[in-house]
């Protein structure tokens, strides 16, 4: 099996290069992560992130044959060879396939991804009806792998100012939550030509999300709430 892997060490290399690898691996039933681990066994200088190896931790978001995906849940069968593996686009490379996600997390932090509720804490818990809880389906499952945000052209053009699909999905998640009391404050923050309105519904985010979520719909919901509030 042939793979071409992006190699770059900013401290020693003048520029990035693609390195070819051949690994003896039966593709059936194996994932891209298995191939990367096989490469690591023969060349331990290759750096990449991985942890849970089952699509839950979101560590191994990579650009595989041009499409952002989690290496651990992307089957090797069906991939054109040589399989080109690059780091997530538009983020600074720390080494090889490891990118600096600081910007991504700054946007995540900016949307205050936690419940804001100034009522005194109840004895046991803040209750929701099953219907209110169901509103969060499709929003809370995000694992912050950054596949969507780094696939978004609007993020590529304005990475510092556009929050990106992942952060906006989380913004929508807390706006939607019946227990949250800061909806107005959250909408105020988002009503901005850059933070929210750089989204042109390109929908790359929907295409690549390994959890099958729909950030574009969440962004549409935020826009609808802004319109409702304004009119």
């Amino acid at each position, binding site marked *: 099996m042939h793979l071409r892997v992006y190699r770059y060490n900013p401290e020693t290399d003048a520029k990035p290069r693609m390195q070819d690898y051949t690994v003896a691996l039966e593709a059936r039933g194996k994932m891209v992560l298995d191939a990367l681990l096989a490469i690591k066994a023969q060349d331990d200088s290759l750096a990449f992130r991985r942890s849970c190896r089952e699509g839950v931790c979101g560590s191994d978001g990579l650009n595989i044959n041009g499409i952002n995906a989690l290496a651990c849940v992307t089957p090797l069968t069906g991939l054109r060879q040589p399989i080109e593996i690059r780091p997530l686009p538009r983020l600074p490379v720390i080494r090889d396939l490891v990118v600096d996600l600081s910007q991504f997390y700054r946007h995540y932090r900016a949307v205050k991804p936690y419940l804001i509720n100034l009522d005194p804490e109840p004895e046991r818990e803040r209750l929701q009806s099953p219907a209110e809880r169901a509103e969060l389906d499709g929003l809370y499952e995000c694992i912050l792998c950054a596949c969507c945000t780094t696939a978004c052209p609007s993020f590529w*053009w304005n990475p510092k100012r556009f929050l990106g699909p992942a952060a906006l999905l989380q913004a929508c998640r807390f706006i939607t939550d019946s227990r949250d009391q800061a909806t107005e404050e959250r909408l105020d*923050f*988002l*009503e*901005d030509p850059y933070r*929210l*309105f750089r989204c042109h519904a390109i929908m790359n985010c929907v295409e690549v999300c390994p959890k099958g979520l729909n950030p574009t719909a969440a962004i549409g919901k935020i826009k609808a709430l802004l319109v409702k509030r304004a009119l």
Partner: protein
Amino acid sequence: MRTVAGARRGLDLWLWQRASAVVMALYLPAFALYAAIHAPLDYTAWRGLFDPLIVKLATLIFIAAALLHAWIGLREILIDYVHVLGLRLALYLAFGLLYAGCLLWAAAILWGTA
């Protein structure tokens, strides 16, 4: 609780773009129907279509909507691609003037048929 507010802009233009799209979506089939009723259309009949004041006004509103729609779309593209502020503002203005000129020109054509 307004301390972390955004620029509180963006929504207005986004809404205007949708509103102008609605105007175009209403006008185009209505005009197509209106023209179909008056078929066959030779040059005189085509000119005649724009004689009633209501048609002149509707057409002018349609053109204004199309130009506004185009300008807002162009603004989005410029925000995405032109990051030099001075150049971007100059381009906003240049296209704004161009489109305003187009609107005046359209008005002159519409009222020049009488």
